[in-house]
């Protein structure tokens, strides 16, 4: 069951913490329909703290968080948006001032996460690191689960999230409890199948009809579409509140924003595979293939040329011919002896 069960008249308390984030997930969430954000806030939940839309400021904010922590341990939902920075004394993200000292995101997440009933990582940054933890990651950003190791963090990735993924997860938590999760702790409800398996252009993929340039109405696999490695229901759910479109429908390849390797492992976005990185070298995977092919051909070709020029190749075949001729003669001799 959820926090208070569907029969409960008290609304579940939600705290929405913003750490190292661009706020894209919250802004996307505001576009939800059925229920809309306002209905959700008024009728469904008690949104006590919101880093962007809350009317409280400064010490008031900290008071709200402190009182929730003290009064409702284990009975609130904590939503964290963004990565948790760990470098520079964690000062890359500060929630407020507590006891005359900076209360960093890391401290806040540790304290609030330890006593939360449920924890949701909203967006790819909070779920897997995302752009804020991308190389070279100067802030030492880590995803939420890396801080709250002993807690189950429900990952709702997306850059940004589709509002329904988060709304659906929160409402599922309230009404029925934790939804079924995959190995990466994503709700199977929304991340159960790959983009590729639900794609409207899947038939073009199977039939080998591929777009060579963006804008062509065929499968964008050759343009680096990450649909085959990305789990999300974008093709069926679609975006823009009224479910009108999604990247492939808008003629741009999927960039795999719900995947744990996003963005480092999905770049270059218009290439099939991520770049191969060796100390001092960064090369496209297909380029590695071309160079490997070239070196192999050169190696074999030059050895073959030397084999021919030195007469070794001909010698090998002559030797084998002579040997088999000797064997044939021997067989003949034996046969003559017998008869």
């Amino acid at each position, binding site marked *: 069951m959820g926090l208070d069960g569907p029969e409960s008249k008290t609304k579940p308390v939600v705290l929405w913490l913003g750490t190292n984030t661009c706020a894209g997930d919250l802004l996307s969430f505001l576009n939800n329909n059925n229920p809309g954000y306002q209905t959700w806030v008024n009728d469904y939940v008690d949104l006590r703290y919101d880093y962007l839309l809350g009317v409280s400021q400064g010490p008031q904010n900290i008071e709200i968080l402190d009182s929730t922590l003290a009064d409702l341990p284990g009975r609130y939902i904590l939503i964290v948006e963004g990565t948790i920075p760990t470098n520079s004394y964690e000062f890359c993200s500060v929630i407020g001032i507590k006891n005359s000292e900076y209360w960093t995101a890391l401290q806040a997440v540790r304290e609030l996460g330890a006593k939360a009933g449920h924890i949701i990582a909203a967006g790819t940054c909070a779920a897997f690191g995302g752009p804020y933890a991308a190389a070279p990651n100067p802030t030492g950003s880590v995803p939420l689960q890396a801080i709250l190791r002993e807690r189950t963090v429900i990952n709702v990735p997306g850059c940004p999230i589709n509002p329904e993924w988060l709304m659906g997860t929160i409402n599922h938590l309230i009404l029925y409890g934790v939804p079924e999760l*995959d190995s990466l702790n994503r709700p199977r409800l929304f991340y159960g199948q790959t983009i590729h398996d639900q794609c409207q252009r899947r038939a073009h993929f199977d*039939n080998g009809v591929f777009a060579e340039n963006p804008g062509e109405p065929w499968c964008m696999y050759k343009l680096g579409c990450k649909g085959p490695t990305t789990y999300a229901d974008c093709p069926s759910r679609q975006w823009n509140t009224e479910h009108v479109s999604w990247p492939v429908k808008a003629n741009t390849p999927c960039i795999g924003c719900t*995947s744990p390797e996003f963005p480092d*492992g999905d770049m270059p976005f218009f290439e*099939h595979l991520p770049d191969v990185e060796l100390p001092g070298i960064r090369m496209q995977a297909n380029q590695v*293939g071309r160079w490997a092919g070239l070196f192999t051909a050169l190696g074999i070709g030059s050895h073959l040329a030397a084999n021919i020029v*030195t007469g070794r190749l001909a010698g090998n075949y002559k030797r084998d011919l002579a040997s088999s001729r000797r*064997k044939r003669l021997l067989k003949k001799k034996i046969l003559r002896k017998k008869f």
Partner: protein
Amino acid sequence: MDLTLKLKRKKPRHSLVARVLHWLYAPSVLTCIWSGFYINRPAKIYGFRNMNSAQKAHFIAQFTLIFAFLARVYYAFQKKNYKEILPNRQTIQNLPRFVRYELFLNSKKPQFPKYNPGQKLLFTGFVLLLPLQILTGLALYFQDSWQKTTKIAKGLNYLRQLHFLVALGNAILVAGHLYFVFTQGFKTLKSIFTGYK
């Protein structure tokens, strides 16, 4: 000496089991590499009608390869003939002699028991790369049920990259193997068909 004794075949170079398994995994590896390159970057040059046919070929070949590889490993341990394949101290000692000959610095062909150091290293390369190829391939094929593997690899796209790079390594080994087989005279080649040199 009796002439019949001279012709008597005591022990084949390759046993029937080894030959049958070789002719199972050899076409499988080639099909996997060829169809894999199409799957990585579809192009007409590979001769597949479409992605569906390339994937079918890849999947049939992959399961044949898994079966043949596991059977070969089992057979190698059962007959203890892995000792003929895996390099030992002697292989390392013989390596400079072999390299000098292959680099045309020495004209006299050195003699080695069954496999030369180059062959041993090449086959060991297969022994190391094929399990990695199979595991990454299975993780991609069963990506739903093997999602934990994806977690270890830090994502499906990295897994794909690793599968591709290992395939490149295998393709190089196959090219090297085929080159040496066809340039060493036809007796070695014949032995993988008939068992005898």
